C-alpha cells in the first residue's frame, strides 16, 4: 500500500506539488497520469526517498522509504534511463545491487532472464539501446522480488513487443496481490493495463478513481484525460 498524503514540494519560489493525496492499493495497477512537468516524477522521487518533501508525506506500508528494513525486497523502482553507469556491464550493475541487499548472484541471472536481457548481460551499458536500458532498470527493480513496484514511464523507449510484455507482466503481478504504481503520459498504453487512475496537472490531482469512473461518459481514457486537463476557466468541477 502506497499512501501519498498532502504532499507539497517547492523549489525556490516554484511550487511543483501543491498538497496532493492519493493511494495505490495491493492487487491493483494504478496509473499516474499527467502532462510533462505536472509533477509525476517528483512525486515518485519523494516516495522513494530521493527528494525531500517540503511538507506532507509519502509512505510505503505506513513507513517512509528509508525506514524500511529491506527496501529492495519491499519496493522495486525504475526511473527514466537505465540508472546504470555506462562503462559497467549489465550483469556487473545488477550484481552490486544484489550485494547491497544480500541477495545471491543466481538471482541476477534470474532477473536477466525475466526481462530478456541475458544475451547482452556481458556488454557495457553504454552500448545498450534505450529499450535495453529500460529492461535493465526493470531487472534491477525486480531483483528483490518486491510486492510493490513503482515505475516511472516504464513503456517509454520499449518496442511494441516490450510494451506487450510489460503489460502482461504488470497485470500478472497485480493479480497475485502486488501493488503496482506506474506513471505515464501515454494514454493508449495505459488504458489496457491499469485498474485505477490518478491524474495530476500542475501539481494538483484533478481526478482519482477506478478506470471506468474516470472514463465515465467519454469514449476513451485519452478523451477523458484531455477533458480533465484542459483549461477550464471558472469551472472548478
Amino acid at each position, binding site marked *: 500500500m502506497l499512501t501519498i498524503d498532502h504532499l507539497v514540494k517547492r523549489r525556490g519560489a516554484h511550487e511543483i506539488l501543491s498538497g496532493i493525496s492519493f493511494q495505490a492499493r495491493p492487487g491493483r495497477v494504478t496509473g499516474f497520469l499527467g502532462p510533462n512537468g505536472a509533477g509525476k516524477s517528483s512525486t515518485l522521487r519523494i516516495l522513494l526517498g530521493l527528494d525531500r518533501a517540503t511538507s506532507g508525506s509519502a509512505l510505503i506500508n505506513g513507513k517512509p522509504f528509508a525506514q524500511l528494513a529491506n527496501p529492495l525486497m519491499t519496493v522495486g523502482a525504475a526511473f*527514466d*534511463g*537505465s540508472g546504470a553507469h*555506462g562503462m559497467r556491464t549489465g550483469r556487473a550493475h545488477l550484481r552490486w545491487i544484489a550485494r547491497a541487499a544480500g541477495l545471491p548472484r543466481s538471482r541476477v541471472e534470474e532477473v536477466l532472464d525475466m526481462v530478456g536481457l541475458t544475451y547482452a548481460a556481458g556488454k557495457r551499458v*553504454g*552500448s545498450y539501446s534505450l529499450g535495453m*536500458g529500460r529492461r535493465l532498470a526493470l531487472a534491477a527493480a525486480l531483483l528483490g522480488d518486491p510486492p510493490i513496484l513503482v515505475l516511472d514511464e516504464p513503456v517509454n523507449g520499449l518496442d511494441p513487443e516490450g510494451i506487450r510484455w510489460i503489460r502482461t507482466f504488470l497485470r500478472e503481478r497485480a493479480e497475485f496481490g502486488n501493488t503496482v504504481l506506474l506513471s505515464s503520459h501515454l494514454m493508449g498504453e495505459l488504458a489496457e493495463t491499469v485498474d485505477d487512475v490518478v491524474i495530476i496537472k500542475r501539481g494538483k490531482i484533478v481526478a482519482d478513481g477506478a478506470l471506468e469512473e474516470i472514463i465515465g461518459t467519454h469514449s476513451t481514457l485519452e478523451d477523458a484525460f484531455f477533458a480533465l486537463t484542459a483549461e477550464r476557466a471558472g469551472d472548478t468541477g
Partner: protein
Amino acid sequence: MKAFKAELSKLFSLPYIWLALLLGAFAPALFAALDNFAEKKDIIAGISTRLSEVGYIGLAFGVQGVIIVGVLAVSSEYVRESNENGGGQQLTTSLSVVPSRLSFMLAKGGAVTIISILLCVVAIFTTLTVTRLILGEYAPTFDWSKLLGVACYWVLTALLASGLTFITKSGVIPLTVLMINSSVVSLSVVLSKVTKLAYYLPDRAGIDMFMSMSDSVHTPLAGGFVMAAWAAVFFMIAAIVFHRRDVAA
C-alpha cells in the same frame, strides 16, 4: 557563422563557465601581485635578476582559466552527469543541428579562440594594472610583441585543451596534464633535465614567446611555431578520430 554563434552561446550557458572566466581574468593578476611583492625589494635596489619576468609570470601561470574553458567546451558535449537529460549526450543534438563534423569542430575551435583572446585582453589589463600599482615607477615597460606572445600562448593552450578533449572524450586527462604543466611544478621542466627534446613540448616552447628565461632555447617566433604545430597536429588527429567515431561509442 551560425554554427559559430551557436557554439558561443552554448559555451556561455555552461554551468561553472563563469567561474573559469573569472579565474582567467583575475588569477594572473593575483599571481603577478604575489610575485611583485616578493621581488619588489630587489627591483627597487636594482639587483633583481627577474625584472624581465615581472607580470608575465602571472600571465604564464594564469593560463588555467582558458584551459578549463577549452576542456569544458568539448567535454560538456559528452557528459552524462546531469539528472535531467536522462543520460543523453548533448553531442547527439549538436551534430543533428550542424551535420558536418568538420564545421562543428571549426565552430567549436573558433568560439574557444575568441573567448581566449577576449579573456587574455582582460587578464593583461588586470595584470599590468596590478603590477603598476605595486611597483609604481619601478614597473618595467611591457612591449607589444611580448603581449602578443601571451595572447598566442593562451589561444594555443586553449586549442590544445579542446583538441585533446575531442580525442579523449573526457576532460580528465587534458585538464590534469595541461593544468599541471602550466604550473610551477611543470612536468616539462622535469623532463627537460633529462632530455633536450623536452624543450619542444608545447608549453615549454610556447612560453618562449614572452618569457626570456635563463634556459630558453627558442626565439619567440620559433617557440610560437613549435606550439602552433602541436596545436595543429592535435586538432588534425582530433578531426580524424572524431570523423571516424560513432557518436554513441
